[in-house]
Protein backbone atom coordinates (compact mmCIF):
# COMPACT_ATOMS: atom_id res chain seq x y z
CA UNK A 1 0.00 0.00 0.00
CA UNK A 2 2.75 2.41 0.92
CA UNK A 3 4.52 1.51 -2.31
CA UNK A 4 1.42 2.49 -4.26
CA UNK A 5 0.98 5.81 -2.46
CA UNK A 6 4.66 6.61 -2.92
CA UNK A 7 4.37 5.81 -6.64
CA UNK A 8 1.39 8.15 -6.97
CA UNK A 9 2.96 10.90 -4.86
CA UNK A 10 6.09 10.84 -7.01
CA UNK A 11 3.88 11.72 -9.97
CA UNK A 12 1.21 14.00 -8.46
CA UNK A 13 1.64 16.84 -5.95
CA UNK A 14 -0.82 15.45 -3.35
CA UNK A 15 1.72 15.23 -0.58
CA UNK A 16 2.97 18.77 -1.15
CA UNK A 17 -0.56 20.12 -1.38
CA UNK A 18 -1.54 18.38 1.84
CA UNK A 19 1.45 19.91 3.55
CA UNK A 20 0.96 23.40 2.14
CA UNK A 21 -2.78 23.61 2.70
CA UNK A 22 -3.50 21.30 5.63
CA UNK A 23 -0.74 20.07 7.90
CA UNK A 24 1.57 23.05 7.57
CA UNK A 25 -1.03 25.73 6.91
CA UNK A 26 -1.24 27.64 10.17
CA UNK A 27 -4.48 29.21 11.27
CA UNK A 28 -5.06 31.37 14.36
CA UNK A 29 -5.85 29.27 17.39
CA UNK A 30 -8.60 31.58 18.67
CA UNK A 31 -11.27 30.86 16.05
CA UNK A 32 -14.74 31.02 17.57
CA UNK A 33 -18.08 29.74 16.24
CA UNK A 34 -18.22 32.50 13.63
CA UNK A 35 -15.40 30.74 11.83
CA UNK A 36 -17.26 27.51 11.08
CA UNK A 37 -19.46 28.97 8.35
CA UNK A 38 -16.88 28.93 5.60
CA UNK A 39 -16.49 25.15 5.70
CA UNK A 40 -20.26 24.80 6.14
CA UNK A 41 -20.78 26.84 2.98
CA UNK A 42 -18.54 24.42 1.11
CA UNK A 43 -20.54 21.53 2.56
CA UNK A 44 -23.82 23.04 1.42
CA UNK A 45 -22.39 23.56 -2.06
CA UNK A 46 -21.64 19.83 -2.24
CA UNK A 47 -25.10 18.98 -0.85
CA UNK A 48 -26.74 21.14 -3.51
CA UNK A 49 -24.73 19.63 -6.34
CA UNK A 50 -25.47 16.04 -5.25
CA UNK A 51 -29.17 16.59 -4.53
CA UNK A 52 -29.44 18.71 -7.64
CA UNK A 53 -28.01 15.98 -9.84
CA UNK A 54 -30.52 13.42 -8.59
CA UNK A 55 -33.36 15.90 -9.12
CA UNK A 56 -32.09 16.61 -12.63
CA UNK A 57 -32.59 12.95 -13.56
CA UNK A 58 -36.35 13.36 -13.13
CA UNK A 59 -36.94 17.01 -14.00
CA UNK A 60 -38.42 18.07 -17.34
CA UNK A 61 -37.64 21.62 -18.57
CA UNK A 62 -40.81 21.97 -20.61
CA UNK A 63 -43.55 24.47 -19.73
CA UNK A 64 -46.25 21.78 -19.85
CA UNK A 65 -44.29 19.13 -17.97
CA UNK A 66 -42.08 20.97 -15.47
CA UNK A 67 -44.57 21.39 -12.62
CA UNK A 68 -45.81 17.81 -13.06
CA UNK A 69 -42.24 16.47 -13.11
CA UNK A 70 -41.67 18.02 -9.70
CA UNK A 71 -44.84 16.31 -8.44
CA UNK A 72 -43.58 13.06 -9.98
CA UNK A 73 -40.48 13.49 -7.86
CA UNK A 74 -42.58 14.14 -4.75
CA UNK A 75 -45.19 11.40 -5.33
CA UNK A 76 -43.75 8.71 -7.60
CA UNK A 77 -39.96 8.64 -7.36
CA UNK A 78 -38.70 6.46 -4.54
CA UNK A 79 -37.47 8.76 -1.79
CA UNK A 80 -38.10 11.65 -4.15
CA UNK A 81 -39.17 13.83 -1.24
CA UNK A 82 -35.66 13.49 0.23
CA UNK A 83 -34.17 14.83 -3.01
CA UNK A 84 -36.50 17.78 -3.24
CA UNK A 85 -36.58 18.81 0.42
CA UNK A 86 -32.79 18.46 0.69
CA UNK A 87 -32.37 20.81 -2.24
CA UNK A 88 -34.85 23.43 -0.99
CA UNK A 89 -33.50 23.28 2.56
CA UNK A 90 -29.97 23.51 1.15
CA UNK A 91 -30.88 26.62 -0.81
CA UNK A 92 -32.06 28.51 2.26
CA UNK A 93 -29.27 27.12 4.43
CA UNK A 94 -26.75 28.23 1.84
CA UNK A 95 -27.85 31.82 2.35
CA UNK A 96 -28.08 31.56 6.14
CA UNK A 97 -24.55 30.17 6.26
CA UNK A 98 -23.20 32.69 3.74
CA UNK A 99 -24.80 35.65 5.54
CA UNK A 100 -23.29 34.52 8.84
CA UNK A 101 -19.96 33.98 7.07
CA UNK A 102 -20.08 37.50 5.64
CA UNK A 103 -21.10 38.96 8.98
CA UNK A 104 -18.02 37.41 10.57
CA UNK A 105 -15.99 39.27 7.97
CA UNK A 106 -17.72 42.54 8.80
CA UNK A 107 -17.22 42.07 12.53
CA UNK A 108 -13.55 41.20 12.56
CA UNK A 109 -12.32 43.28 9.62
CA UNK A 110 -11.50 40.23 7.51
CA UNK A 111 -11.89 42.41 4.42
CA UNK A 112 -8.93 44.61 5.36
CA UNK A 113 -5.48 44.54 3.85
CA UNK A 114 -4.08 42.08 2.77
CA UNK A 115 -7.46 40.34 2.38
CA UNK A 116 -9.20 42.85 0.09
CA UNK A 117 -9.26 40.45 -2.86
CA UNK A 118 -10.50 37.64 -0.63
CA UNK A 119 -13.46 39.83 0.34
CA UNK A 120 -14.14 40.88 -3.24
CA UNK A 121 -14.08 37.31 -4.51
CA UNK A 122 -16.38 36.35 -1.66
CA UNK A 123 -18.84 39.07 -2.55
CA UNK A 124 -18.79 37.96 -6.18
CA UNK A 125 -19.60 34.45 -4.94
CA UNK A 126 -22.54 35.92 -3.02
CA UNK A 127 -23.94 37.66 -6.08
CA UNK A 128 -23.40 34.53 -8.18
CA UNK A 129 -25.26 32.56 -5.55
CA UNK A 130 -28.21 34.92 -5.78
CA UNK A 131 -28.31 34.40 -9.54
CA UNK A 132 -28.12 30.64 -9.05
CA UNK A 133 -30.97 30.71 -6.55
CA UNK A 134 -33.16 32.83 -8.81
CA UNK A 135 -32.54 30.55 -11.81
CA UNK A 136 -33.32 27.46 -9.75
CA UNK A 137 -36.49 28.98 -8.36
CA UNK A 138 -38.00 29.42 -11.83
CA UNK A 139 -37.49 25.77 -12.78
CA UNK A 140 -40.33 24.10 -10.79
CA UNK A 141 -42.61 26.42 -12.77
CA UNK A 142 -45.19 27.06 -10.10
CA UNK A 143 -47.04 30.34 -10.39
CA UNK A 144 -44.49 32.17 -8.25
CA UNK A 145 -41.68 30.69 -10.36
CA UNK A 146 -43.35 32.12 -13.43
CA UNK A 147 -44.09 35.58 -12.12
CA UNK A 148 -40.83 35.86 -10.22
CA UNK A 149 -39.11 34.96 -13.46
CA UNK A 150 -41.07 37.68 -15.20
CA UNK A 151 -40.16 40.33 -12.60
CA UNK A 152 -36.43 39.75 -12.88
CA UNK A 153 -36.34 39.51 -16.66
CA UNK A 154 -38.20 42.81 -16.80
CA UNK A 155 -35.50 44.32 -14.58
CA UNK A 156 -32.98 43.21 -17.19
CA UNK A 157 -35.00 45.10 -19.77
CA UNK A 158 -34.46 48.33 -17.84
CA UNK A 159 -30.85 48.40 -19.02
CA UNK A 160 -30.60 51.33 -21.46
CA UNK A 161 -30.35 50.66 -25.21
CA UNK A 162 -29.78 46.88 -25.08
CA UNK A 163 -32.34 46.08 -22.37
CA UNK A 164 -35.02 44.62 -24.64
CA UNK A 165 -32.51 42.53 -26.55
CA UNK A 166 -30.99 41.23 -23.29
CA UNK A 167 -34.47 40.40 -22.06
CA UNK A 168 -35.16 38.36 -25.19
CA UNK A 169 -31.88 36.52 -24.66
CA UNK A 170 -32.89 35.73 -21.11
CA UNK A 171 -36.40 34.55 -21.98
CA UNK A 172 -35.84 32.93 -25.36
CA UNK A 173 -39.36 33.88 -26.34
CA UNK A 174 -42.17 36.35 -25.79
CA UNK A 175 -42.80 35.30 -22.25
CA UNK A 176 -41.44 32.81 -19.73
CA UNK A 177 -41.90 29.40 -21.33
CA UNK A 178 -40.09 26.28 -22.52
CA UNK A 179 -37.12 28.14 -24.07
CA UNK A 180 -36.69 29.97 -20.79
CA UNK A 181 -36.79 26.80 -18.74
CA UNK A 182 -34.30 25.11 -21.04
CA UNK A 183 -31.71 27.86 -20.82
CA UNK A 184 -32.30 28.51 -17.13
CA UNK A 185 -31.72 24.83 -16.52
CA UNK A 186 -28.52 24.92 -18.53
CA UNK A 187 -27.30 27.88 -16.50
CA UNK A 188 -28.48 26.58 -13.15
CA UNK A 189 -27.06 23.07 -13.59
CA UNK A 190 -23.87 23.60 -15.60
CA UNK A 191 -22.72 27.17 -16.10
CA UNK A 192 -23.24 28.82 -12.75
CA UNK A 193 -22.15 25.82 -10.63
CA UNK A 194 -18.90 25.65 -12.60
CA UNK A 195 -18.41 29.37 -12.04
CA UNK A 196 -19.17 28.91 -8.34
CA UNK A 197 -16.72 26.04 -7.98
CA UNK A 198 -14.00 28.03 -9.72
CA UNK A 199 -14.70 31.09 -7.57
CA UNK A 200 -14.66 29.03 -4.37
CA UNK A 201 -11.30 27.51 -5.36
CA UNK A 202 -9.82 30.95 -6.00
CA UNK A 203 -11.39 32.18 -2.75
CA UNK A 204 -9.61 29.47 -0.75
CA UNK A 205 -6.36 30.08 -2.63
CA UNK A 206 -6.59 33.79 -1.81
CA UNK A 207 -7.16 32.91 1.84
CA UNK A 208 -4.25 30.52 2.02
CA UNK A 209 -1.92 33.01 0.39
CA UNK A 210 -2.28 35.56 3.19
CA UNK A 211 -3.57 33.40 6.03
CA UNK A 212 -6.73 33.85 8.01
CA UNK A 213 -7.79 36.78 10.18
CA UNK A 214 -9.12 36.12 13.70
CA UNK A 215 -11.61 37.55 16.23
CA UNK A 216 -9.00 39.89 17.70
CA UNK A 217 -8.06 41.25 14.29
CA UNK A 218 -4.32 40.92 14.89
CA UNK A 219 -1.93 39.37 12.40
CA UNK A 220 -0.52 36.14 13.84
CA UNK A 221 2.31 36.17 11.30
CA UNK A 222 3.77 39.18 13.14
CA UNK A 223 4.69 36.99 16.09
CA UNK A 224 6.61 33.97 14.82
CA UNK A 225 8.17 31.43 17.15
CA UNK A 226 11.73 30.08 16.91
CA UNK A 227 10.60 27.58 14.23
CA UNK A 228 9.25 30.39 12.07
CA UNK A 229 5.62 29.37 12.63
CA UNK A 230 3.21 31.90 14.16
CA UNK A 231 3.09 31.56 17.96
CA UNK A 232 -0.65 32.04 17.92
CA UNK A 233 -1.18 29.64 15.04
CA UNK A 234 -1.97 25.92 14.88
CA UNK A 235 -1.88 23.63 11.84
CA UNK A 236 -5.23 23.45 10.11
CA UNK A 237 -5.00 19.69 10.11
CA UNK A 238 -5.73 18.08 12.54
CA UNK A 239 -7.09 20.89 14.71
CA UNK A 240 -9.52 22.63 12.42
CA UNK A 241 -10.40 19.56 10.37
CA UNK A 242 -11.55 17.87 13.57
CA UNK A 243 -13.36 21.00 14.79
CA UNK A 244 -15.08 21.52 11.44
CA UNK A 245 -16.20 17.91 11.37
CA UNK A 246 -17.92 18.50 14.70
CA UNK A 247 -19.46 21.68 13.34
CA UNK A 248 -20.62 19.73 10.30
CA UNK A 249 -22.41 17.16 12.46
CA UNK A 250 -24.25 19.82 14.45
CA UNK A 251 -25.20 21.55 11.21
CA UNK A 252 -26.42 18.31 9.63
CA UNK A 253 -28.57 17.64 12.69
CA UNK A 254 -30.31 20.98 12.22
CA UNK A 255 -30.48 20.42 8.46
CA UNK A 256 -32.11 17.00 8.77
CA UNK A 257 -34.50 18.26 11.44
CA UNK A 258 -35.76 20.79 8.93
CA UNK A 259 -36.00 18.27 6.07
CA UNK A 260 -37.87 15.79 8.24
CA UNK A 261 -40.08 18.00 10.37
CA UNK A 262 -40.53 21.39 8.74
CA UNK A 263 -39.43 21.36 5.10
CA UNK A 264 -41.51 24.34 4.04
CA UNK A 265 -40.73 26.30 7.24
CA UNK A 266 -44.31 27.48 7.13
CA UNK A 267 -43.85 28.93 3.67
CA UNK A 268 -40.46 30.53 4.27
CA UNK A 269 -38.24 27.90 2.61
CA UNK A 270 -40.79 26.68 0.08
CA UNK A 271 -43.28 29.40 -0.79
CA UNK A 272 -46.79 28.02 -0.54
CA UNK A 273 -48.03 30.21 -3.38
CA UNK A 274 -45.82 28.15 -5.68
CA UNK A 275 -47.92 25.02 -5.13
CA UNK A 276 -50.08 25.88 -8.12
CA UNK A 277 -48.92 25.63 -11.75
CA UNK A 278 -47.62 28.63 -13.70
CA UNK A 279 -50.46 30.73 -15.11
CA UNK A 280 -49.49 33.54 -17.50
CA UNK A 281 -52.99 34.96 -17.24
CA UNK A 282 -53.21 35.14 -13.47
CA UNK A 283 -50.74 37.05 -11.32
CA UNK A 284 -50.63 35.90 -7.70
CA UNK A 285 -52.03 38.53 -5.29
CA UNK A 286 -48.54 39.13 -3.88
CA UNK A 287 -45.32 38.47 -5.73
CA UNK A 288 -42.61 38.30 -3.13
CA UNK A 289 -39.20 36.76 -3.64
CA UNK A 290 -37.64 34.15 -1.42
CA UNK A 291 -36.59 35.45 2.00
CA UNK A 292 -32.90 35.67 1.08
CA UNK A 293 -33.64 38.17 -1.68
CA UNK A 294 -36.22 40.08 0.34
CA UNK A 295 -34.00 42.93 1.62
CA UNK A 296 -33.04 43.84 -1.93
CA UNK A 297 -36.64 43.58 -3.07
CA UNK A 298 -37.63 46.00 -0.33
CA UNK A 299 -34.96 48.42 -1.53
CA UNK A 300 -36.26 48.11 -5.08
CA UNK A 301 -39.84 48.81 -4.04
CA UNK A 302 -38.90 51.76 -1.83
CA UNK A 303 -37.95 53.80 -4.89
CA UNK A 304 -41.03 53.98 -7.17
CA UNK A 305 -39.03 55.06 -10.22
CA UNK A 306 -38.00 51.95 -12.18
CA UNK A 307 -34.50 53.10 -13.04
CA UNK A 308 -34.13 54.81 -9.67
CA UNK A 309 -35.04 51.64 -7.84
CA UNK A 310 -32.54 49.67 -9.84
CA UNK A 311 -29.98 52.39 -9.20
CA UNK A 312 -30.52 52.18 -5.45
CA UNK A 313 -30.31 48.41 -5.65
CA UNK A 314 -27.14 48.68 -7.69
CA UNK A 315 -25.59 51.01 -5.16
CA UNK A 316 -26.56 48.70 -2.30
CA UNK A 317 -24.82 45.85 -4.07
CA UNK A 318 -21.74 47.75 -5.30
CA UNK A 319 -20.81 49.61 -2.11
CA UNK A 320 -19.78 46.51 -0.14
CA UNK A 321 -17.11 45.82 -2.75
CA UNK A 322 -15.32 48.98 -1.62
CA UNK A 323 -15.45 48.14 2.06
CA UNK A 324 -11.69 47.44 2.33
CA UNK A 325 -11.03 51.04 1.32
CA UNK A 326 -14.01 52.68 3.01
CA UNK A 327 -12.85 51.48 6.42
CA UNK A 328 -9.89 53.63 7.37
CA UNK A 329 -9.32 52.64 10.97
CA UNK A 330 -6.13 50.68 11.75
CA UNK A 331 -8.01 48.52 14.26
CA UNK A 332 -9.75 45.60 12.56
CA UNK A 333 -11.96 43.81 15.07
CA UNK A 334 -15.26 44.99 16.45
CA UNK A 335 -14.04 43.80 19.87
CA UNK A 336 -11.99 46.99 20.10
CA UNK A 337 -14.23 49.34 18.11
CA UNK A 338 -17.36 50.28 20.06
CA UNK A 339 -18.44 52.92 17.53
CA UNK A 340 -18.12 50.51 14.61
CA UNK A 341 -20.09 47.99 16.67
CA UNK A 342 -22.92 50.46 16.87
CA UNK A 343 -22.81 51.05 13.12
CA UNK A 344 -22.84 47.32 12.48
CA UNK A 345 -25.85 46.95 14.78
CA UNK A 346 -27.72 49.55 12.74
CA UNK A 347 -26.74 47.77 9.53
CA UNK A 348 -27.96 44.43 10.82
CA UNK A 349 -31.25 45.87 12.04
CA UNK A 350 -31.72 47.63 8.70
CA UNK A 351 -31.17 44.43 6.75
CA UNK A 352 -33.60 42.52 8.97
CA UNK A 353 -36.28 45.18 8.73
CA UNK A 354 -35.79 45.52 4.97
CA UNK A 355 -36.06 41.74 4.74
CA UNK A 356 -39.34 41.79 6.65
CA UNK A 357 -40.64 44.63 4.48
CA UNK A 358 -39.63 42.76 1.33
CA UNK A 359 -41.79 39.82 2.34
CA UNK A 360 -44.94 41.84 2.93
CA UNK A 361 -47.46 42.64 0.22
CA UNK A 362 -46.71 45.99 -1.38
CA UNK A 363 -48.20 48.82 0.65
CA UNK A 364 -47.85 52.61 0.63
CA UNK A 365 -47.40 52.53 4.41
CA UNK A 366 -44.19 50.55 3.96
CA UNK A 367 -42.58 53.11 1.66
CA UNK A 368 -41.34 55.38 4.40
CA UNK A 369 -39.80 52.72 6.63
CA UNK A 370 -38.33 51.09 3.53
CA UNK A 371 -36.65 54.33 2.53
CA UNK A 372 -35.43 55.01 6.06
CA UNK A 373 -33.73 51.65 6.38
CA UNK A 374 -32.43 51.73 2.82
CA UNK A 375 -30.90 55.06 3.77
CA UNK A 376 -29.39 53.65 6.95
CA UNK A 377 -27.96 50.72 4.99
CA UNK A 378 -26.31 53.00 2.43
CA UNK A 379 -25.15 55.42 5.12
CA UNK A 380 -23.23 52.62 6.86
CA UNK A 381 -20.94 52.44 3.87
CA UNK A 382 -20.98 56.13 2.94
CA UNK A 383 -20.17 57.45 6.42
CA UNK A 384 -17.61 54.76 7.23
CA UNK A 385 -14.63 56.60 5.67
CA UNK A 386 -15.19 59.61 7.91
CA UNK A 387 -16.33 57.83 11.03
CA UNK A 388 -13.58 55.22 10.91
CA UNK A 389 -10.99 57.95 10.58
CA UNK A 390 -12.04 59.65 13.82
CA UNK A 391 -13.54 56.84 15.89
CA UNK A 392 -11.98 56.12 19.29
CA UNK A 393 -10.86 52.52 19.74
CA UNK A 394 -9.85 50.32 22.64
CA UNK A 395 -6.35 48.98 23.18
CA UNK A 396 -5.66 46.05 20.89
CA UNK A 397 -3.69 43.20 22.52
CA UNK A 398 -0.41 41.90 21.12
CA UNK A 399 -1.37 38.25 21.33
CA UNK A 400 -4.72 36.57 20.75
CA UNK A 401 -7.38 35.94 23.37
CA UNK A 402 -8.43 32.33 23.48
CA UNK A 403 -12.03 33.06 24.54
Amino acid at each position, binding site marked *: MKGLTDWINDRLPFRELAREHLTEYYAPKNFNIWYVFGSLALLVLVIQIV*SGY*FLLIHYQPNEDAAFDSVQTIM*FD*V*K*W*GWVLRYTHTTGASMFFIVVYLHMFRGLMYGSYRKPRELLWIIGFIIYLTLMAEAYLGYVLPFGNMSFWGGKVITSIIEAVPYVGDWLGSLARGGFGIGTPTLNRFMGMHVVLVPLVLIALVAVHVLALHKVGSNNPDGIEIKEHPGPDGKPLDGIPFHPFYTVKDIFGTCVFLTAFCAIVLYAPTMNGLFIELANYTPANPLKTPPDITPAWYLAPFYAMLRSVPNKLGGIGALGLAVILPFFLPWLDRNPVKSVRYRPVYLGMLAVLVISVFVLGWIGMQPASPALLLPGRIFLGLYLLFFLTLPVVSHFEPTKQVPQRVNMS
Partner: protein
Amino acid sequence: MSDNQIDEKRRKFLTTVTSVVGAAGAGLAATPFVKSMEPDASVQAASTTTVDIGAIGPGEQVTVKWQDKPVFIVNRTPEMLATLKKVTPELLDPDNKLPQQPPYCNNMYRSRKPEWFVMVGVCTHLCCTPTFKPQQGSVNPKWLGGYHCPCHGSFYDLSGRVFKDVPAPRNMAIPEYEFTDNDTKIKITSLYPKSKLC
Protein backbone atom coordinates in the same frame (compact mmCIF):
# COMPACT_ATOMS: atom_id res chain seq x y z
CA MET B 1 5.27 12.04 28.33
CA SER B 2 2.67 9.48 29.35
CA ASP B 3 0.10 12.23 28.93
CA ASN B 4 0.93 12.38 25.23
CA GLN B 5 0.79 8.62 24.93
CA ILE B 6 -2.66 8.50 26.52
CA ASP B 7 -3.76 11.28 24.23
CA GLU B 8 -2.48 9.39 21.18
CA LYS B 9 -4.37 6.27 22.18
CA ARG B 10 -7.54 8.20 22.88
CA ARG B 11 -7.17 10.09 19.62
CA LYS B 12 -6.80 6.86 17.69
CA PHE B 13 -9.70 5.19 19.47
CA LEU B 14 -12.12 8.06 19.04
CA THR B 15 -11.03 8.57 15.43
CA THR B 16 -11.77 4.92 14.67
CA VAL B 17 -15.13 4.86 16.42
CA THR B 18 -16.23 8.14 14.86
CA SER B 19 -15.09 7.02 11.41
CA VAL B 20 -17.03 3.77 11.64
CA VAL B 21 -20.21 5.45 12.84
CA GLY B 22 -19.74 8.22 10.30
CA ALA B 23 -19.22 5.76 7.45
CA ALA B 24 -22.36 3.88 8.47
CA GLY B 25 -24.25 7.15 8.45
CA ALA B 26 -22.88 8.08 5.06
CA GLY B 27 -24.01 4.73 3.67
CA LEU B 28 -27.50 5.18 5.11
CA ALA B 29 -27.66 8.70 3.77
CA ALA B 30 -26.64 7.56 0.30
CA THR B 31 -29.38 4.92 0.16
CA PRO B 32 -32.35 7.19 -0.71
CA PHE B 33 -30.34 8.85 -3.45
CA VAL B 34 -29.36 5.57 -5.06
CA LYS B 35 -32.86 4.13 -4.69
CA SER B 36 -34.35 7.22 -6.31
CA MET B 37 -32.82 6.00 -9.56
CA GLU B 38 -34.99 2.86 -9.52
CA PRO B 39 -38.06 2.88 -11.79
CA ASP B 40 -40.71 5.05 -10.14
CA ALA B 41 -44.42 4.50 -9.53
CA SER B 42 -45.46 5.88 -12.92
CA VAL B 43 -43.53 3.04 -14.57
CA GLN B 44 -45.54 0.59 -12.47
CA ALA B 45 -48.71 2.23 -13.77
CA ALA B 46 -47.64 1.73 -17.35
CA SER B 47 -47.00 -1.97 -16.79
CA THR B 48 -50.21 -3.25 -18.40
CA THR B 49 -51.48 -2.72 -21.92
CA THR B 50 -55.05 -3.24 -23.08
CA VAL B 51 -55.76 -3.90 -26.75
CA ASP B 52 -59.07 -3.69 -28.58
CA ILE B 53 -59.16 -6.83 -30.72
CA GLY B 54 -62.30 -5.91 -32.67
CA ALA B 55 -60.40 -4.57 -35.66
CA ILE B 56 -58.06 -7.56 -36.09
CA GLY B 57 -59.31 -9.54 -39.07
CA PRO B 58 -58.89 -13.32 -39.53
CA GLY B 59 -55.29 -14.26 -40.28
CA GLU B 60 -54.03 -10.81 -39.29
CA GLN B 61 -51.35 -9.97 -36.74
CA VAL B 62 -51.19 -6.78 -34.74
CA THR B 63 -48.08 -5.68 -32.81
CA VAL B 64 -48.57 -3.67 -29.62
CA LYS B 65 -46.01 -2.19 -27.24
CA TRP B 66 -46.14 -3.61 -23.75
CA GLN B 67 -43.50 -2.61 -21.17
CA ASP B 68 -41.40 -1.37 -24.08
CA LYS B 69 -41.49 -4.84 -25.73
CA PRO B 70 -43.41 -5.98 -28.85
CA VAL B 71 -46.38 -8.29 -28.28
CA PHE B 72 -47.96 -10.09 -31.26
CA ILE B 73 -51.72 -10.69 -31.27
CA VAL B 74 -52.91 -12.96 -34.07
CA ASN B 75 -56.48 -13.78 -35.04
CA ARG B 76 -55.70 -17.36 -36.15
CA THR B 77 -57.83 -18.99 -38.84
CA PRO B 78 -58.82 -22.70 -38.67
CA GLU B 79 -56.28 -23.39 -41.48
CA MET B 80 -53.54 -21.82 -39.37
CA LEU B 81 -54.58 -23.90 -36.37
CA ALA B 82 -54.50 -27.06 -38.49
CA THR B 83 -50.79 -26.56 -39.26
CA LEU B 84 -49.84 -26.83 -35.59
CA LYS B 85 -50.15 -30.64 -35.46
CA LYS B 86 -48.41 -31.06 -38.81
CA VAL B 87 -45.16 -29.29 -37.86
CA THR B 88 -44.83 -31.00 -34.47
CA PRO B 89 -42.08 -33.48 -35.55
CA GLU B 90 -39.82 -30.59 -36.64
CA LEU B 91 -40.07 -28.68 -33.36
CA LEU B 92 -37.51 -28.60 -30.57
CA ASP B 93 -40.03 -28.40 -27.71
CA PRO B 94 -43.51 -29.15 -29.12
CA ASP B 95 -44.98 -30.15 -25.74
CA ASN B 96 -43.98 -27.00 -23.89
CA LYS B 97 -41.59 -28.81 -21.55
CA LEU B 98 -39.86 -25.48 -20.78
CA PRO B 99 -42.10 -23.09 -18.77
CA GLN B 100 -42.29 -20.43 -21.48
CA GLN B 101 -46.04 -19.94 -21.00
CA PRO B 102 -48.49 -19.51 -18.11
CA PRO B 103 -50.24 -22.75 -17.05
CA TYR B 104 -53.50 -21.79 -18.77
CA CYS B 105 -51.60 -21.61 -22.08
CA ASN B 106 -49.85 -24.95 -21.70
CA ASN B 107 -51.42 -26.53 -24.75
CA MET B 108 -50.75 -26.92 -28.48
CA TYR B 109 -52.33 -23.56 -29.20
CA ARG B 110 -50.33 -21.89 -26.39
CA SER B 111 -53.30 -19.61 -25.74
CA ARG B 112 -56.50 -19.26 -23.70
CA LYS B 113 -58.67 -19.45 -26.82
CA PRO B 114 -57.31 -21.26 -29.88
CA GLU B 115 -58.07 -18.47 -32.34
CA TRP B 116 -56.59 -15.62 -30.28
CA PHE B 117 -52.82 -15.90 -30.05
CA VAL B 118 -50.85 -13.56 -27.74
CA MET B 119 -47.05 -13.80 -27.62
CA VAL B 120 -44.09 -11.63 -26.70
CA GLY B 121 -42.41 -11.11 -30.07
CA VAL B 122 -38.84 -11.43 -28.86
CA CYS B 123 -36.60 -14.10 -30.42
CA THR B 124 -35.18 -16.30 -27.69
CA HIS B 125 -31.75 -16.29 -29.35
CA LEU B 126 -30.55 -12.67 -29.12
CA CYS B 127 -33.73 -10.61 -28.68
CA CYS B 128 -34.57 -9.45 -32.20
CA THR B 129 -38.19 -9.12 -33.34
CA PRO B 130 -39.10 -12.03 -35.66
CA THR B 131 -41.13 -11.42 -38.82
CA PHE B 132 -44.66 -12.85 -39.19
CA LYS B 133 -44.69 -15.21 -42.15
CA PRO B 134 -48.18 -16.79 -42.21
CA GLN B 135 -48.24 -17.53 -45.97
CA GLN B 136 -47.69 -21.20 -46.80
CA GLY B 137 -44.59 -21.64 -48.99
CA SER B 138 -43.42 -18.04 -48.40
CA VAL B 139 -40.11 -18.91 -46.70
CA ASN B 140 -39.41 -22.23 -48.45
CA PRO B 141 -41.61 -24.65 -50.43
CA LYS B 142 -42.40 -26.74 -47.33
CA TRP B 143 -43.21 -23.74 -45.12
CA LEU B 144 -46.62 -24.03 -43.42
CA GLY B 145 -46.64 -20.60 -41.71
CA GLY B 146 -44.97 -19.14 -38.64
CA TYR B 147 -42.18 -16.73 -37.77
CA HIS B 148 -38.72 -16.14 -39.18
CA CYS B 149 -36.11 -14.14 -37.34
CA PRO B 150 -34.07 -11.99 -39.77
CA CYS B 151 -31.08 -11.58 -37.44
CA HIS B 152 -29.71 -15.16 -37.35
CA GLY B 153 -32.34 -17.19 -39.13
CA SER B 154 -34.35 -18.91 -36.38
CA PHE B 155 -37.79 -20.31 -37.28
CA TYR B 156 -40.95 -20.67 -35.14
CA ASP B 157 -44.41 -22.09 -35.88
CA LEU B 158 -47.73 -20.27 -35.62
CA SER B 159 -47.74 -20.93 -31.86
CA GLY B 160 -44.26 -19.47 -31.45
CA ARG B 161 -42.69 -22.89 -30.91
CA VAL B 162 -39.07 -23.04 -32.06
CA PHE B 163 -37.91 -25.40 -34.81
CA LYS B 164 -35.03 -27.83 -34.37
CA ASP B 165 -31.54 -26.93 -35.65
CA VAL B 166 -31.90 -23.17 -35.41
CA PRO B 167 -29.91 -20.75 -33.17
CA ALA B 168 -32.84 -20.01 -30.85
CA PRO B 169 -32.99 -22.39 -27.83
CA ARG B 170 -36.59 -21.95 -26.62
CA ASN B 171 -40.17 -21.27 -27.71
CA MET B 172 -41.00 -17.57 -27.63
CA ALA B 173 -42.64 -16.51 -24.36
CA ILE B 174 -46.39 -16.16 -23.81
CA PRO B 175 -47.21 -13.33 -21.35
CA GLU B 176 -49.88 -13.39 -18.66
CA TYR B 177 -53.01 -11.89 -20.16
CA GLU B 178 -56.78 -11.84 -19.81
CA PHE B 179 -59.86 -11.08 -21.89
CA THR B 180 -61.80 -8.07 -20.64
CA ASP B 181 -64.84 -6.01 -21.53
CA ASN B 182 -66.97 -8.92 -22.72
CA ASP B 183 -64.05 -10.46 -24.62
CA THR B 184 -63.63 -7.40 -26.83
CA LYS B 185 -60.26 -6.53 -25.33
CA ILE B 186 -57.08 -8.32 -24.32
CA LYS B 187 -55.14 -6.98 -21.32
CA ILE B 188 -51.48 -7.97 -21.15
CA THR B 189 -50.46 -7.81 -17.52
CA SER B 190 -47.07 -9.33 -16.77
CA LEU B 191 -44.38 -11.76 -17.77
CA TYR B 192 -44.87 -15.34 -16.55
CA PRO B 193 -42.16 -15.43 -13.86
CA LYS B 194 -40.62 -18.75 -14.92
CA SER B 195 -40.31 -17.81 -18.57
CA LYS B 196 -37.23 -16.31 -20.21
CA LEU B 197 -37.39 -13.86 -23.08
CA CYS B 198 -33.92 -13.98 -24.59
